[in-house]
């Protein structure tokens, strides 16, 4: 079931009504409903893969309880590694088996050895990378004694399978989400209405921005040999907007939906294209994954402690693993490598935490320096996206070669004026809202009276957004969320 479908439009109110009216005063029943709803939501794609989630859940639930009872370090380590082995084993088999086998065969062929390829026809379970990382974080936190394991089975199952964020994140930490399943949820008007606004903005980003940009990005990337440099550059900009609208749109809908049920998920995107350098970009893009890698990989490796070489090694590891997490293809690995190359100079010069505030704080427009920094960061991000989107590394290099030549200064042959106007509108709204959590959040500085005073204006704006989705949206059912494949 996808968020921008009629099925979800029926599913969500139905679960909402059952949750708040039928099971209002029973916490365990509410958790059970969330589990049932989540399994229906996931099984809508392919019910067979539910067995994987159930198996993963059972393993981590029992390992968590055993870790609490066990004091011997060697046994605790064994339990932790069992969880890591099972979870990463599933992920490795379903996502990376063919990639490693094919790369192995290619590598040996290069040296003159011949092997028959033994690739398997494996179907990738939707969202496996997301829920695997979520359950792993639970076991690691319990092992490190940062979290007490839960004995409430349904709370744990609900934590692993919570439908708003099950298939494409945000990747929630057990320390944040799991305790929320133990507490009685009280309906909060402010939170729920803000959740509705966040859902609306997420739908706009996905249906209007991402899916319309996808049409042009696909056309340009699929036929890149026919286009001028300027059009190819535009193609990478369209893809940058597509992937942002798609993924942050999903996160907005996920966070908004969770709020309707009384849960608070962490912000996953903080207007990353308004970043002044690449370090700031990575603090604002896919925050739940970046912080996961930071806490469970970068810091255990030594982080930024130690000598320069250690820092360089750790930076490359974290970016390359992050690339590999996105998909089993050398293009993703190169994308990670390229981002490490962008990041490294800032880290070595100790300038990677220059910008921790919001751009143009307290001003309407950015300064010239900020504007240049933001434009340059967006430009190098677009270059990296070319590797992310291309079919192979050689195609990506060819794409770049065809981009940066004399034809870069010609008039692009693809020039969708209406889409440019929509993108302009989108950028203005996001810019004005850059201090908030999402594009439609009402400023916390406004009093209730002030909010009511602008009710007519606000509602008119929501109606305009709904009509924009209706008139300008791309409802092609073949376009799923990009991050489902990761």
């Amino acid at each position, binding site marked *: 079931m996808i968020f921008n479908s009629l099925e979800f439009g029926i599913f969500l109110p139905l679960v909402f009504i059952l949750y708040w009216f039928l099971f209002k005063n029973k916490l365990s029943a509410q958790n059970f409903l969330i589990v049932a709803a989540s399994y229906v939501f996931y099984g809508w794609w392919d019910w067979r893969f539910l067995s994987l989630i159930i198996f993963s859940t059972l393993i981590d639930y029992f390992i968590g309880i055993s870790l609490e009872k066990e004091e011997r370090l060697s046994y605790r380590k064994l339990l932790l590694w069992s969880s890591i082995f099972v979870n990463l084993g599933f992920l490795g088999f379903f996502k990376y088996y063919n990639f490693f086998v094919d790369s192995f065969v290619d590598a040996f062929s290069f040296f003159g050895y011949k092997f028959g390829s033994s690739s398997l026809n494996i179907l990738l379970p939707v969202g496996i990378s997301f829920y695997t990382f979520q359950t792993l974080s639970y076991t690691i936190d319990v092992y490190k004694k940062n979290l007490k394991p839960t004995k409430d089975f349904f709370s744990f199952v609900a934590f692993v399978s919570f439908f708003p964020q099950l298939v494409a994140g945000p990747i929630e930490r057990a320390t944040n989400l799991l305790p929320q399943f133990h507490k009685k949820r009280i309906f909060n008007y402010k939170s729920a*209405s803000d959740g509705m606004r966040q859902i609306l903005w997420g739908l706009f980003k996905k249906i209007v921005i991402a899916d319309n940009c996808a049409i042009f990005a696909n056309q340009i990337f699929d036929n890149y040999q026919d286009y001028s440099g300027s059009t190819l550059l535009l193609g990478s900009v369209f893809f940058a907007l597509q992937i942002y609208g798609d993924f942050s749109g999903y996160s907005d809908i996920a966070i908004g939906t969770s709020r309707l049920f009384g849960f608070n998920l962490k912000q996953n995107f903080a207007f990353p294209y308004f970043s002044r350098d690449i370090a700031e970009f990575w603090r604002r893009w896919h925050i739940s994954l970046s912080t996961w890698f930071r806490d469970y990989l970068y810091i255990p490796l030594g982080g930024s402690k130690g000598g320069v070489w250690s820092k360089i090694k750790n930076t490359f590891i974290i970016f390359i693993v992050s690339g590999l997490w996105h998909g089993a293809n050398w293009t993703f690995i190169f994308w990670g490598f390229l981002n490490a190359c962008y990041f490294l100079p800032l880290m070595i010069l100790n300038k990677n935490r220059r910008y921790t505030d919001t751009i143009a704080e307290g001003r309407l427009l950015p300064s010239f320096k900020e504007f240049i920094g933001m434009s340059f960061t967006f430009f190098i991000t677009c270059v990296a996206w070319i590797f992310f989107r291309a079919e192979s590394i050689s195609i990506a290099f060819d794409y770049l070669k065809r981009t940066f030549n004399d034809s870069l200064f010609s008039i692009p042959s693809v020039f969708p004026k209406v889409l440019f106007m929509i993108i302009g509108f989108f950028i203005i709204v996001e810019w004005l809202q850059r201090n908030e959590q999402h594009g439609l959040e009402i400023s916390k500085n406004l009093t209730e009276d002030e909010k009511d005073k602008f009710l007519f204006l606000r509602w008119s704006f929501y109606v305009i957004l709904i009509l924009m989705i209706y008139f300008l*949206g791309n409802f092609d059912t073949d376009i799923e969320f990009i991050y489902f494949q990761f």
Partner: protein
Amino acid sequence: MRKFIKKTILFLLLLVIINLTFHCFLTKEVVFNKYIYNGQNLEKYNVFILSDSHGEALKNLTNQFNIFNFSYVGDNYQDMYYKLLYLSSHIDSNDVILITVNHHTLSKYRDVSNNTIRNLMYVNNIENVFDDDLNTEFHKSKLFKKVPLLVGNYGSFYFDYIKNHLKDGFFDDLSFANVPAIKQKKQIESRFNQQFGNDDNSEKGLFFLNKIIEISKKYKFQLKGIKYPVSNLYYNKIKDFDMNAEMVLTLNNIETIDFQKKYFFSDDMFKDQDHLNKKGAQVLLEKLKVILN
């Protein structure tokens, strides 16, 4: 919770009102009136044109010749069949139906590039032979007329309608004669590849062209083919690539008015390689009037 429910219901009511406004004032306009150029008084006409962009290029100039232009960019024979079914309950027997039989009209590219989803709105039932999703789309099209806001992917019809109105007449005075020779050649090549890239005839197109012939016989309409002119350069390129829609009519003893071979249209009468501009449309309609009389 009460406040949340109250506001949600209020907002939904607002959307219902907007939906009703669309339903009452806009949908009919978009679906039935301005999408076709002549308005809805079908009874006063006795000649009807069913075509793709070649017929659409005649715009509402047909009005002065008392001809109803029911053409639209991208229409294929399935679209024209649905439109003919709609016409059959509004017009008289013996009325003339002109159907396009240009070289490309039985090309397979029309299976993909067409207006079938929106033309489903003209009919009350469908014969589903080729498309798995057609039944679903048919029901959605019915729903769209009543609850437009609920059928997301139909919203683009309003947008296209607005866009077409904004640019209506904007390109009608362009002249292919003024296009530099290199660009002419490039345009011709690209158009040719689009229309004749696939050698096979469209099975679907043939099926619905035969249905058009069948329904015309049933309602005793005078069905005639019409072959629109194309620029000389483009004609030289396509003359050996006819997908033979005209022959299907000939085999059924139906005549075709051929504006390609028998009449001369200079390059300044075209806005591009194969579509008439305003001047060309006027000339064609005058000739057509003489032929039909």
